């Protein structure tokens, strides 16, 4: 392992000035987005430019300075990417507010960004060794389950847009699944590292004649898979109607068990179980069927709900649901074309609830294909840098943890953007850093803090022995 991992080690360079330059670029792009919106919509520089620009830019720079002191060896690309995505999110929300779209709340988002960055700094400061998280796998599992089940509690649980995934705390509302997914990744990392040998070695071979088809795990080792599957299907899909979280968590689980065991049979079993359950549930779970039909037949007049279909009481859209949001999202993106209408020049209000899951279509409309490609590539880069951290780290737990978090970010992006652009059925999830909402933003910054800390530890050069001091040796703590 040592020879292989040496070649994977990241160079021990800080590159903090590069981070500063790129962070400044990200702040500059955010300011430019605000200015462009102001000029296009109101013909003047936005009056709150200094408020937003000063606050947001100041926060990002503070985060950079903080990193210089407390995680100087961390990957220099992560903070600029997060800054860019978060800044574009705020700028778009501000733009939507200018377009008189209710509930955009850019100021709220800015305040939440500040709070998230504070938590980000706190994690980097206090969690010097992420491996300590390995000590409490079952506590993390419990936390994940409690957080996921919280919205089911009568009194505080809330249903928003059909999915029961919110908790009302009186002064604010939270989406606990955003944090549950992090706890779950920690648990899975710890659990799988300890059970790795059993999960990966014990097997039963399925043969057809002389040919080995599949290397099946033993039945008794299927327990974690069965629990995870049951939880995702029964609790999330049937009880909570939260298809997005279900898909995300199960996908991440499969990715992590594959990383831990290097056995593709887990993926085959997992996918078969998940899609089998979906197929079985299809006739019985109403909202699930609606999602499928609106995805497959989005352009059917009866599903889209044209005036003619509206008059027909038996039409799908009068009995179940319609595909208007999805289709109008596509229209918005088509309107943007290659270069977009420019910020403030489009009509994002044509898509209902554009400030939430469908904010991607507003980017598509106003920044065009070029703009959304930048956004997607930034997210790709973030994910791939995370994977690189996993490769460079030496401890198994950290490898699992970093790759799990990275995949979670990537898969979550795929689930939400794929849903909005009709690659997969629409399930409802949040684009990391971009989406509106405190829980989503906070969990994104928590994940970023964990990645930063892990990358810092992976890149930090091992302390050198002081040659002339005889037997005394500095040992890294």
């Amino acid at each position: 392992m040592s020879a292989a991992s040496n070649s994977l080690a990241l160079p021990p360079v800080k590159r903090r000035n590069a981070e500063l330059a790129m962070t400044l670029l990200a702040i500059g792009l955010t300011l430019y987005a605000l200015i462009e919106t102001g000029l296009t919509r109101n013909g003047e520089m936005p009056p709150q430019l200094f408020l937003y620009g000063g606050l947001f830019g100041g926060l990002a720079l503070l985060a950079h300075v903080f990193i210089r002191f407390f995680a100087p060896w961390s990957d220099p690309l992560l903070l600029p990417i997060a800054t860019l995505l978060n800044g574009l999110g705020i700028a778009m929300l501000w733009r939507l507010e200018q377009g008189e779209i209710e509930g955009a709340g850019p100021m709220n988002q800015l305040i939440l960004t500040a709070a998230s960055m504070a938590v980000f700094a706190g994690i980097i400061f206090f969690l010097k060794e992420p491996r300590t998280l390995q000590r409490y796998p079952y506590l993390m599992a419990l936390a994940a389950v409690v957080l996921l089940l919280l919205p089911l509690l009568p009194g505080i649980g809330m249903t928003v847009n059909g999915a029961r995934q919110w908790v009302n705390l009186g002064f604010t509302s939270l989406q606990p699944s955003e944090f549950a997914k992090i706890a779950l990744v920690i648990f899975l990392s710890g659990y799988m590292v300890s059970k790795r040998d059993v999960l990966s070695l014990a097997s039963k071979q399925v043969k057809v004649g002389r040919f080995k088809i599949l290397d099946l795990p033993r039945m008794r080792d299927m327990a974690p898979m069965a629990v995870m599957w049951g939880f995702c299907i029964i609790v999330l899909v049937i009880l909570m109607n939260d298809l997005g979280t279900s898909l995300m968590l199960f996908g991440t689980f499969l990715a992590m068990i594959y990383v831990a065991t290097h056995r593709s049979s887990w993926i085959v079993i997992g996918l078969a179980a998940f899609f089998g359950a979906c197929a079985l549930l299809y006739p019985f779970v109403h909202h699930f069927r609606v999602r499928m039909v609106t995805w497959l037949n989005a352009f059917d007049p009866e599903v889209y709900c044209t005036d003619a279909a509206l008059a027909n009481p038996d039409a799908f859209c009068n009995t179940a649901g319609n595909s208007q949001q999805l289709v109008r999202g596509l229209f918005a993106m088509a309107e943007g074309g290659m270069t977009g209408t420019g910020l403030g020049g489009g009509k994002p209000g044509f898509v209902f609830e554009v400030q939430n899951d469908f904010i991607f279509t507003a980017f598509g409309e106003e920044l065009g294909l070029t703009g959304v490609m930048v956004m997607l590539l930034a997210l790709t880069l973030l994910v791939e840098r995370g994977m690189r951290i996993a490769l460079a780290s030496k401890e198994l737990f950290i490898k699992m943890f970093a790759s799990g978090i990275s995949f979670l970010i990537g898969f979550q992006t795929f689930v939400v953007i794929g849903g909005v652009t009709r690659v997969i059925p629409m399930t409802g999830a949040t684009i990391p850093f971009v989406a509106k909402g405190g829980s989503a933003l906070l969990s994104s910054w928590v994940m970023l803090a964990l990645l930063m800390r892990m990358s810092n530890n992976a890149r930090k050069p091992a302390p050198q022995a002081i040659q002339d001091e005889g037997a005394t040796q500095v040992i890294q703590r």
Partner: protein
Amino acid sequence: MNTPIRRLAIFSMALFGVLLLNVTWIQAFQAESLRNHPFNSRQYIDVLTNPRGPILIGSEEVAYSEPVSEDSDQYQRHYPANGLYAHAVGTFPIRTEGVEKTENSLLDGSDERLAVRNFMDTITGAETQGASVELTIDPAAQQAAMDGFEALGKNGAAVALDPESGAILGLYSNPTYDPNGVSSLTETEAANTRWEELTEDERKPLLNRALQERYPPGSTFKVVTAAAALENGADPDSTMDAPASIDLGAPLPNAWNGPCNGGQPDPLAHSIEQSCNTSMANWAIELGADKMTAQADAFGFNQGEMDVPIPALGSNYPNETDRNLLGRSGIGQADVEATPLQMAMVAAGVANDGDVMKPYLVDSVKDSDLSTIEGHTPEKLSTAVSGRTADDLTDMMVLVTEGEDASGSQGAIPGMQVAGKTGTAETGSGPTHNWFISFAPADDPQVAVAVVVEHGGQSGGVLAAPIAKGIMEAVINE
């Protein structure tokens, strides 16, 4: 553990790859069709606030946009020529087929070919402007068609083509309507009411009869039959039995209930001059269904819908194996159906030495700074007949307007030779449709025309030929 992490990294990249490909598909390749999707209400609202490019005929703006009022950001479309070009130009907001619809992306500036210019406008802060579209229509010819039909007071259509290029010089359908009446943005209520009235009007003023209606072509189709005969070895003097009536299931008589050449076999040229039914039906039967169909196809029949760019219905010449139907199809009856555009193409093909040019309505599209974005290069659709056959057909058609037994002398223009052919088509129900197709001058054709008068109940020579004459004179006298 590194191998599975690497694979996971590659898989993540593949997920993003799928997203990138998909947004490219939506925003680059599908964008145009999504923008024009019938569910997409943006196209109806967005566009009202864009200054739309004008549509020009000659140098006159026949459709242009002006701000609704000083404090409005919407633009009202105006049609100063009222009903004259309604079927060619269409209406905006788009309610009908017309150039307003087919060239919409150019007129409103959303076409990709205007992207660079729009981008420059965005940077310089100038308002984006749509392109201007110039049509091939000759205002005098169009006016002549309208005058002719209004004097007659009957439904019908006229198409005039430049035989050499295929340019549409006239495209008129009667009755017409005033696009201004249905496109007002300030009095939308009245516009909608007017639209309702037009859709329910029994005379179907919204129907573009020149392109979107098929009629039995009657005797004008004899030009095609004669072409098939000449192409297959006959010459203008070849004769064919031409009794007063032949038996095709039911008797098929001549229009005047007598034989064509005093009971003698009739020469082909004379059959055309006099519009003899019995001999031409016999020619069709003798040639056979395959040769007849091949000739009709060569003139443009059976080719399906064609965009000029306004969609035009295809014309039909069914391959009739039944002798009776085959005979009737030779004189443009049975199940033969043609649009006025198709019959104009027959005349134009003969006029252009046998080559049928592709008809087109949009002459050029110009940017707001007058640089040409799209021009038109004349395109040959097919070679219908040889040059020699075309010459023979021309001579025969000249006899139609000036021969001893001329059936279409009302189409003649003093001082030049006009090649023409009349048609009086049985309709099965109601009075006959009356046709005239022609081109002039016969020795150097500048214009080819087809005119149909719906249920005129008289001969094509009487009702349709004067209108065709007016259109031809208007083009030639310029």
